[in-house]
């Protein structure tokens, strides 16, 4: 289905992603982990074509998406939804309009200017919001919502695109643990119920373990781990995070109980 072959991105002398190759043959939930600056975001942005790749090839169902331009590029982007760390909604517009933006690829500039979204799309948008449990906020402005709610609006926008792949770039990094759990569970449900491929950048190991079918570990732009989360031993994790023997998994966790465990560990040490 999805194939990365030697995909490389350099910014001047900096190599953000270095010859990344992997294949995904069925829809699954993939977690990409690594330190900040390891190239996780660039990897996702290259798949969505928000960033051009310097070298290499990305193919999906035999279609080479690497060098698409113009309408073909926008059409691919509409099939490959993106969720951002800072939600990237239009703050001054209402929630339903933000969700409707997921269909922009099918509409002309003229109909966008006059806000002519079809009624069935509006019905579908509100149904999606209902599925994510935030339908009652439909008429509010996006900026009036809390972070967790805004991220669910962003997921609704992604679902409105009816995409083949959902990319999530650090979707829970700006959220508190409770909201993070709701958002991750929504992504997992979307994968299980709709059978869509989900690729999420995460920076905590326990989130990847808990929600993902496959984990890709990146370090300094290179893929250094690729496999089932069960295979992710402490040694492998140390390799990904470039840490020494003092590394404990709790150091990358945001879960309250592990943090407490870490504190008591430190106290006893």
């Amino acid at each position, binding site marked *: 289905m999805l194939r990365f072959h030697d995909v490389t991105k350099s910014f001047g002398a900096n190599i953000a992603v270095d010859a990344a190759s992997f294949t995904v043959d069925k829809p699954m939930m993939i977690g990409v982990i690594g330190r900040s600056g390891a190239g996780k975001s660039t990897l996702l942005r290259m798949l969505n074509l928000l960033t051009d790749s310097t070298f290499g090839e990305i193919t999906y169902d035999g279609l080479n998406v690497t060098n698409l331009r113009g309408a073909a590029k926008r059409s691919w982007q509409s099939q490959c939804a993106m969720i951002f760390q800072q939600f990237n909604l239009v703050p001054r517009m209402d929630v339903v309009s933000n969700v409707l933006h997921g269909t922009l690829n099918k509409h002309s500039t003229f109909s966008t200017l006059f806000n002519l979204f079809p*009624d069935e799309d509006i019905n579908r948008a509100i149904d999606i919001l209902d599925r994510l449990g935030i339908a009652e906020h439909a008429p509010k402005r996006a900026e009036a919502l809390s972070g967790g709610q805004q991220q669910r609006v962003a997921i609704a926008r992604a679902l409105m695109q009816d995409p083949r792949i959902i990319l999530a770039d650090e979707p829970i990094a700006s959220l508190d643990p409770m909201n993070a759990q709701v958002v991750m569970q929504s992504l997992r449900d979307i994968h299980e119920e709709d059978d869509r491929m989900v690729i999420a950048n995460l920076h905590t190991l326990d989130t990847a373990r808990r929600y993902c079918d496959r984990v890709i570990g990146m370090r300094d732009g290179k893929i250094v781990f690729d496999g089932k989360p069960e295979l992710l031993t402490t040694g492998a994790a140390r390799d990904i995070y470039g840490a020494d023997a003092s590394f404990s998994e709790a150091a990358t966790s945001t879960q309250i109980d592990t943090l407490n465990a870490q504190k008591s560990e430190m106290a006893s040490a």
Partner: protein
Amino acid sequence: MTDASLGDTSTQTIKDVYFAQRRTKRLLNTILLVLFIAMMVAGFRTADARNAGGFFDGFTSILDFPGDVVSEAIERFHLLPGYLIKYFPSLIETVNIAAASTLLGALIGLVLSLMVTRGLAPVPALVGPLRRVLDVLRAVPEIVIALVLIFLLGGGPIPAMIAIALHTIGALGKLFSEVNENASLNPVEGLASVGASWSQRMILGVIPQVAPNYLSYALLRFEINIRASAILGFVGAGGIGYDLRNTISWGQGKFDEAAAIFLLLFLTIVVVDQLSSVLRNRLTHGAKIGEAHP
């Protein structure tokens, strides 16, 4: 799953509310659009009726004058460098008037802008009256002020400078105060908490936040003022406007010199525009010295 029917009806209510909201919005937008078109048509018809010649009769000859200027300029292209040098001193005078008036206007406008911004004003009661003063400064055409001052002080660059500066105070005072409104009050509060005076709070808490916007408005105003001071040359304030009036109204034969003056004005605007983007970049992103980006 006993709540399924209940859930459906509540979603239906949400949909109904949203559709009603959208209908109202659309209705308002349509009314606005109709009003806009009606005003456009009415305004155009009034203007056309009052015109001496009428729009549609004169329409075809609009390009005649620029055509004459361009064709003469091309005909005597070899003389152009000489004209550029000949009129350069007058250009300097015009730019000088514009620069002095922009500087003076921006400084006074800055102080006034802080005094008319709600939340920053030292004397809240003065916000309204001072705003009206700014309104008056903007409302009176600078050419009128310049004519009065030329009558009182005699011709020359000083009356033009004062006239343009007064208008600049009004314009920049308003624009700066709108910029100030968007500044975050948190640093101001932080400085107030350490016992800083009003001017200290403004200098350290507000101005660093909004300086790039100030600069871009001030430089835009500088461009406008170059043009304004060229126009004031027509009424005896000196500078390149005086030369432009002579070359344009002398009738056929001097249009090549007029073209040279237009070219000089255009080049000046280009230089100011480039300068503005360089300065703004430096101000927003900081100087490039010692940059250590990964």
